[in-house]
């Protein structure tokens, strides 16, 4: 006889132990949320509370999988309870369901362990506490939530600070038929439960023949900005390259934009020449005579000093050469806008300067070259202009400054670009946290108010 059916705590598909476990974990989570600065009422919402819990202990990605698995395990268990008749009739179906439950439970177990590792980190507790969490998570939450000795290392900052983010500049870049005209209203991403603004209010014009430095601290939105400009990730924006709208004509314009990512995205098992030849075949117009294509490949080999190694395998080249091959592959289509994300990372000073000099020469050919680098001061004389991006109080990427190098030095009253980055970085990142102030100041300068 099943004694549990007479227990007053048995509710539908839950037995007594389930009910006790749910009550304990709810109270534990309520108190833990209180300590972590999360809305306590979330602890009463099944499944979503697990996501909020994971998010609050800095394990958001793990939390999503944890919640999905949890939902699926519960769903299958409930389904099985209601349709047990069919499972008795078809034992194979039961085996299949049990197999699925085992896999899902294993994933659930691993991801819940990861989330609890996050909890231990936040509360500065030893990782062995995860063992208790795996046996009785509710009890651990109860202990963490009630114990006065256990306090969080930090409380996750809210999206907004006490400070107000800098106001919008109201400035619009002039739409021209030459060069690059950027008018980004905003770039947002929707991530499951919330919308986040990554970039806002960025307006500028870059004339042909300029080599531009893109400066900003970590997470300031440099790559997001470049992806928006190149049309890879469309923003609420209008981007014109030599008068053509990059977004509406992306299929054609993509050949006119070269983007060299930070990693060398080239196949290591091919020869240098074949790598360039294939890139030429893909990116150059199909009606271009073969002779011209060959000449273009030869020219690019010369520009980047790759002729001596043209028959060698890419994977056997040095780091500097691989970087040049990677750049040459993008440059083969002779783009008017050439963007490079940290091309000098991993290169010593001499190699970095040599590379930047080649890029400078390319810009003198009427191209726009935009470069992200974290060591700008060793090659600053090669740049014509600088774009400075920084995070405002809402942690949104904003334009702090755009102008010539000298104007930048005057505006920030700093001689070194690295000092400028330090000035705009947030205080919790070791910076001076003057980003909002400078964004507003630059807006006033642009609007002629200063």
């Amino acid at each position, binding site marked *: 006889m099943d004694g549990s059916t007479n227990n007053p705590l048995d509710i539908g598909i839950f037995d007594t132990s389930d009910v006790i476990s749910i009550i304990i974990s709810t109270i534990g989570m309520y108190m833990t949320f209180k300590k972590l600065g999360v809305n306590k009422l979330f602890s009463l919402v099944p499944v979503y509370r697990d996501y909020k819990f994971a998010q609050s202990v800095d394990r958001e990605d793990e939390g999503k999988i944890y919640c999905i698995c949890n939902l699926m395990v519960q769903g299958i268990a409930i389904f099985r309870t209601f349709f047990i008749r069919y499972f008795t009739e078809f034992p*194979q179906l039961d085996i299949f369901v049990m197999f699925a439950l085992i896999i899902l439970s294993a994933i659930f177990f691993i991801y819940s362990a990861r989330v609890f590792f996050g909890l231990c980190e936040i509360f500065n507790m030893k990782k062995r506490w995860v063992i208790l969490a795996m046996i009785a998570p509710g009890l651990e939450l109860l202990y963490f939530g009630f114990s006065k000795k256990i306090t969080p290392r930090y409380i996750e900052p809210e999206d907004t600070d006490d400070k107000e983010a800098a106001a919008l500049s109201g400035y619009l870049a002039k739409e021209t038929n030459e060069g690059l005209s950027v008018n980004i209203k905003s770039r947002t991403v929707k991530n499951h439960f919330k919308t986040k603004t990554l970039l806002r209010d960025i307006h500028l014009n870059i004339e042909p023949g300029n080599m531009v430095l893109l400066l900003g601290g970590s997470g300031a939105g440099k*790559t997001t900005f470049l992806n928006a400009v190149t049309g*890879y990730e469309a923003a609420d924006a209008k981007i014109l390259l030599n008068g*053509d709208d990059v977004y509406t004509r992306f299929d054609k314009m993509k*050949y006119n934009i070269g983007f060299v*990512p930070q990693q060398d995205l080239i196949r290591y098992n091919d020869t240098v020449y074949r790598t360039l030849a294939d890139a030429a075949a893909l990116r150059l117009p199909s*009606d271009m005579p073969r002779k011209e294509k060959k000449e273009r490949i030869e020219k690019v080999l010369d520009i980047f000093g790759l002729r001596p190694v043209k028959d060698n395998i890419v994977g056997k080249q040095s780091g500097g050469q691989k970087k040049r091959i990677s750049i040459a592959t993008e440059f083969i289509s002779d783009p008017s806008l050439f963007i490079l994300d940290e091309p000098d990372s991993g290169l010593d000073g001499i190699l970095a300067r040599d590379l930047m000099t080649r890029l400078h020469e390319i810009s003198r050919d009427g191209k726009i070259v935009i470069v992200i680098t974290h060591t700008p001061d060793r090659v600053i004389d090669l740049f014509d202009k600088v774009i400075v991006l920084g995070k405002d109080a809402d942690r949104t990427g904003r334009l702090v400054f755009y102008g010539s190098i000298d104007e930048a030095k005057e505006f920030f009253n700093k001689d070194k670009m690295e000092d400028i980055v330090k000035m705009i970085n947030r205080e919790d990142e070791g910076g001076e946290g003057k980003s909002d102030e400078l964004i507003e100041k630059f807006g006033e300068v642009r609007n002629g108010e200063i």
Partner: protein
Amino acid sequence: MEKSRVKRIHHKGRLTQIPIYLGKFFRMFIYEDDWKVVPMAGVIAALVAFVVGSNMFKTMEGTTMGSLGITCICIWNGFFNSIQSICRERSIVKREHRSGMHITSYLLAHVIYQAFICVLQSAVTVAVCVVAKMSMPVIGFITPWFYLDMAITVFLITFAADMMSLTVSSFAKTTTAAMTIMPFMLIFELLFSGRMFQLSGFAETLTNLSLAKWGLNCLCTQASYNDLPMVTVWNQMVKFKNVSIMGETPIEDVVLYMQDNNLVSDFNLAVGHNSMIDELNMTAKNIFNSWINLGLFACIFIVLTFFFLKRIDRDKR
């Protein structure tokens, strides 16, 4: 205003991009030692032929074991051919897609290249079976040569498995993830091959989704499974001939009687006749049915790979 300014420039289309990627893959075949999968197929085939080859095409049991062995070789080869081929260059594919590469061209180049490797592996596998002196029939049922019939089946199993792992490679973000999924696929194929384990009901239905079932069926059909003798009963009788019942050994009497009258072969054939499986009847319909199913699987996996690759732009940094 802008429209008139943009010069009509045409770039390589879907068809003309295929040779570019084929060239890349064939160079990879040479430079990155991808060719090693061909002799490896020979080594694995030799091992299997050594272990299960002696009774293949001779008895029902030997043919089942041998066919399963060959099917496993094919699935193994197919899986290993392409399990890492897309995921290892995922970021390169994403980058190239953004700068003009057509997913269809890239995928078709992969399909052609993988088919080429599968053809080589199939040829090597059949050749090894011949060298290992498996007693194969000479005349084929579909083509004039049995070797060719067998090679087509071996190719289709290998190719379908290859396309299956290409699909995994297209959605797995890393090579580690792809290699983690592969054992599950292998276990599924083995468990649901339909001949090794007695399955019924829903589980039996599931066997229709395994490449191993169709490969095994096809090889058994081509080996004329239903016309072969079954030796299990005879072997058991010989094994238990000394079992005594009320002071007598009736099994030994039967064994001796059959041996003395040269009835063993007839007995084994009669047992085999009673164990016939309809779907293994040596008919063109059964063989084509298996071939078509294997081909269909390959096509479905190619389509799935296409859809997974189309989502590559959504990859985060």
